[in-house]
């Protein structure tokens, strides 16, 4: 049996063009981990081109989605939207429903970033219909919850967050669990319930620290600071904001640095105006 196993055929090597796309994809991922967003965008563009040359639907979808994520992080929202076109506006290739759901959800997130809430809702609904019971359902519920929050429908937002929490716990998606908890905290903040907000944000922070996600940690700290403001604990709020600022500075997140600094200044200005 051992000899038969030793004599089995080795795995067939991949063609060079496929290897090129794979290598570009891996390289871009490494650059993204290293904080080189421009390099990552270049790598994903190269991988997308290589996949398009091979008419590989899965490769096209994966790299288009990745490219849209990188562009969004770079603040290039128009490019992020355009990068999804090879999936969402390509009727001649057959993509897996899950891939289509991913692309639709990405489109919803870009529209949400641009405050185009109606369009974002449409794309989130499309993602939901394409997904069915796919692992994305928790993320879709979270996006729908955020849209409800933005439109002031706090009950719908809370319900969406709860559905997302249930789905994420069922699927074991801890990142979406933390997102759902954070969304619940935001709903509580909007409702004026500082205690509930602090509790939910604290839970989200614990998960995000466990997942080592700096940007989420930043958001949780900002949420905790706002909850402290709501509770009248200005020193605690300032401490949270300063921690958020430190995280942003360590991450070289210029947007986060600016926002955290603005929050600290706001906190300093309020006593003067009172």
């Amino acid at each position, binding site marked *: 049996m051992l000899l038969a196993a030793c004599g089995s055929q080795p795995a067939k090597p991949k063609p060079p063009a496929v290897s090129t796309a794979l290598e570009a994809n891996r*390289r871009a991922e490494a650059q*993204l981990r290293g904080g080189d967003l421009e390099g990552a965008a270049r790598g994903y563009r190269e*991988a997308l081109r290589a996949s398009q040359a091979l008419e590989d639907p899965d490769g096209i979808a994966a790299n288009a989605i990745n490219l849209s*994520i990188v562009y969004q992080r770079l603040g290039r929202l128009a490019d992020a939207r355009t990068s999804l076109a090879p999936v969402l506006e390509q009727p001649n290739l057959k993509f897996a429903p899950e891939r289509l759901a991913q692309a639709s959800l990405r489109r919803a997130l870009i529209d949400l970033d641009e405050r185009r809430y109606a369009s974002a809702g449409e794309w989130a609904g499309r993602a939901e219909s394409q997904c069915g019971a796919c692992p994305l359902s928790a993320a879709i519920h979270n996006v729908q919850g955020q849209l409800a929050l933005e439109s002031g429908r706090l009950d719908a937002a809370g319900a969406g967050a709860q559905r997302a929490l249930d789905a994420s716990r069922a699927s074991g998606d801890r990142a979406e669990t933390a997102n759902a908890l954070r969304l619940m905290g935001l709903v509580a903040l909007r409702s004026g319930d500082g205690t509930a907000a602090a509790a939910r944000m604290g839970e989200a922070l614990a998960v995000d620290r466990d997942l080592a996600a700096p940007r989420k940690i930043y958001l949780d700290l900002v949420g905790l600071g706002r909850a402290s403001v709501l509770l009248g604990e200005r020193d605690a709020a300032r401490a949270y904001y300063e921690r958020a600022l430190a995280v942003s500075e360590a991450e070289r997140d210029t947007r986060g640095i600016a926002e955290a600094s*603005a929050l600290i200044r706001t906190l300093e200005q309020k006593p003067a105006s009172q």
Partner: protein
Amino acid sequence: MHDPHVPPRRFTGIRRKISLFMLTAVVGVAGAVALVAYKQGAFVRHTAIYFYAADVFGINKGMAVRLFGLPVGSVRELQIADRGVKVELSIMTEYVSRVPKSSTARLTREGYIGAGTIQIVPGGDPTASSEPVHEGDVIAFVPNRGVAELVEDIKVQLTPMVNEMRRMFAEMNAPGSDLRKSLQGASVVFQQLPETNREMRDVLRDADRAVRATQTTMASAARVTDPLEKDLPAVTATLGTALDSLAGAAHEIRTVARSNGDALHDTLRDGREVVGAAKSSWLIRDYIESPAMRTLPVDSFESFGAGPEVKAVKAAR
């Protein structure tokens, strides 16, 4: 009364003395004249030869004529003729045998500001007649090239070169020229150098991780072989040795990759081959994820930069 004249005693023989003195003077003068004439070549036989020149600027009577640098005669006469100016050269006959009929005459100067001379240049053409000139023969005259001719000559030689340089500069300045393309290509390459450097570092990091993964896999494989050793000691011993060799090779690859930058590419390639071979072995391949396109997680909070409070702050600014 006859008083006969008696010449004074001191005039005795004066006629003879005067005659002797006069004769001596005449002989002396004649000797001096003869000496001067001899010195001037009056007693040397000369042969007259001629040449015609369009003009005789710089040529005058008495000008020395030289053959191989030796004075062999002089310009005797200049006469305007129907072919220009006829110049008569008086050549000492003893040198005439050295002057073939194909010889040419040219006006030269000793240095840039020296006296002018007529230089006879024996004909260099071996096919021409080697018969020496005779009295009355005419030889050719080669006029000197003037400054204008020299300038024109230089101009003729330089013009193609200048035109070629002008064409080259025009090509270099053309927007689509090879030089510009090369410079643009070089510029692009230089701009990409930092990126290439970064990618190289990424590749190094990937290689390091791959080697570590290989070592981990080797350790796993070693654990798998333990139970097999009990049943098939011989086979497992061989496998253990092979795995040890692979682990050693992987360790060596990592060491070499870290220490030797120049051999990095080769080592990396070899390392990949080793890792590839290890991956394709039945013991390991089930534990290694097959290469596939990776997708980043679609995060529902990707767009959530900050809460409404922050956005309000930003809007107010």
